[in-house]
């Protein structure tokens, strides 16, 4: 589904602040793969996601999605088939617009006809939005006319997830999307993620700082350090892996101790 061929990205090239954020990263994700990514701060996890979504173009290498070369495709064109959730729940929704309007925007992806520009939200669509919202069990289906700014962080993130998957994306990128939520809400959003991804067999990449999640969720675990993927495990080998093994792997591969409190604390 997703193929990265030796992509590199250097920020501030030629200055003292030069930072090689991605260093010849290659990755092959099969259809329906759900891979978790761990790594310390600055390992290049978010940069990898931003390269895939097209926030910037990579310096070298190629990106293929479902067989198409999207390396130099514009961000808004890619986002038709890529779902992206940020750590900050405020980033995924427009606060001054109603729940219904936000969902209508997400649903724009479905319509490719140009005449759709001047169409309004139809009653049929409203009904569909309502049904989808009711699946969240958050009572949002009765608040569709309220601005999203009134919702809690967890509710907003759940809504964002719903919006990102409303039209099934080719790939879903989750950038620590539960990290800013309180534990019980995080669990709820995670459960929702698990359900939606499994039901529709969405190919998914998920950054997490939680080692337990990294091994528990999905079918594959990647570890990044210094702009490279240093460890890639799946199948039976992965099922035998414990959190301590994973930490040791990190030490072996990166050649240093984990410098990230959040990873150590979330064991």
């Amino acid at each position: 589904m997703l193929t990265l061929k030796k992509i590199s990205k250097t920020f501030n090239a030629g200055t003292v602040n030069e930072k090689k954020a991605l260093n010849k990263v290659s990755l092959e994700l099969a259809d329906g793969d759900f891979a978790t990514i761990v790594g310390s701060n600055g390992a290049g996890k978010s940069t990898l996601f931003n390269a895939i979504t097209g926030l910037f173009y990579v310096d070298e290498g190629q990106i293929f999605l479902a067989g198409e070369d999207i390396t130099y495709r514009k961000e808004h064109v890619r986002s038709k088939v890529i779902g992206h959730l940020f750590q900050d729940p405020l980033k995924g929704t427009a606060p001054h617009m109603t729940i219904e309007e936000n969902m209508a925007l997400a649903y724009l992806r479905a319509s490719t006809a140009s005449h759709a520009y001047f169409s309004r939200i139809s009653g049929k669509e409203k009904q569909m939005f309502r049904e989808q919202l009711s699946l969240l069990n958050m009572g949002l289906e009765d608040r569709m006319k309220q601005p999203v700014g009134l919702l809690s962080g967890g509710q907003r993130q759940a809504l964002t997830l719903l919006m990102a998957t409303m039209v099934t994306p080719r790939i879903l990128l989750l950038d620590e999307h539960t990290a800013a939520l309180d534990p019980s809400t995080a669990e709820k959003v995670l459960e929702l993620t698990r359900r939606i991804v499994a039901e529709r067999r969405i190919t998914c990449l998920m950054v997490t700082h939680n080692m337990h999640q990294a091994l528990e969720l999905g079918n594959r675990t990647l570890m990044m350090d210094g702009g490279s993927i240093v460890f890639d495990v799946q199948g039976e080998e992965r099922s035998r892996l414990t959190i301590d093994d994973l930490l040791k792997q990190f030490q072996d591969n990166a050649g240093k101790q984990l410098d990230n409190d959040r990873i150590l604390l979330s064991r």
Partner: protein
Amino acid sequence: MGSIFTLSIVQSALELGCIYSLVALALFISFSILNIADLSTDGCFTLGCSVGAVVTISGHPFLAFPAAMAAGVCSGYVTAFLQTKMGVPSILAGIIVNTGLYTVNIAVMDFSSNVNLFGCDTIFGMAKEVSDASWYGDWYKIAIVAAIVLIIGVILAWFLNTRLGLSIRATGDNEYMVKASSINPVFTITVGLCVANSLTALSGAILAQYQKSCDINLGTGMVTIALASLIIGETLIGKGGMFKRVTGVILGSCLYRFIVAVALRMSVPAECLKLVSALIVAFAIAFPYLKGKASFYRSRRMAVVDDGEEGEDRC
């Protein structure tokens, strides 16, 4: 107080309020919705006025409006092009276009600083001949401008609820979300600014026929006046659906004209009006901040009384 509002003052406040409300609606799109301070408003207003005047003089009073709007669209497109394709910061893009428009406007008026429309057919002149009734003579101007504003207001509110309108609103509300929703912000900003500037220019063209003249300095300070109307309207009506907000902006514009009329009646010299508008805008924008500050000082004082010495430490 009754003497402050004579009938003619009410009439002219409503007429001007309706005409200028189109500029306020333009800023509603660019400032409130797209979150862009479009400083080309002054020049664009004069552009609409001069194009409207010239087309009217050539004998096409109705064509004057679409012509002015088309000119406004061009002006908005240039502003949008500079900021989306050329990397010019949005405020600077507006200022640059505003400066350039001065020459364009002079050129439109055949390199004179003003033109007058006396003896030309205007929509106001034509409407006046429809009836001889005395009440009609008093109210026909208001009827025309109110009808235009009503039509524009309904179309605008409808437009902002279409998918394209939603995309434009989202562009100013959350740029991350917009890009993640397959919306092209370059396109939405361009459309938004084109629509906004077409309204500004339309307002100018109506004013040209209304006062039967056009002057190169007519637009000076227009952005401040429109901002004052917009902020008065938004403070008055508050948040809500698009129809409600558009109505608020139009009411705000009329209310602003009443404030100006009152100021004039209280013998504020006409030359000082721009200062009055500047003060109104400064106060209206500062008001929410000052309100927050005031409540902070109030709670600070309360804290000292309630908690004794501990309360002071907290400050």
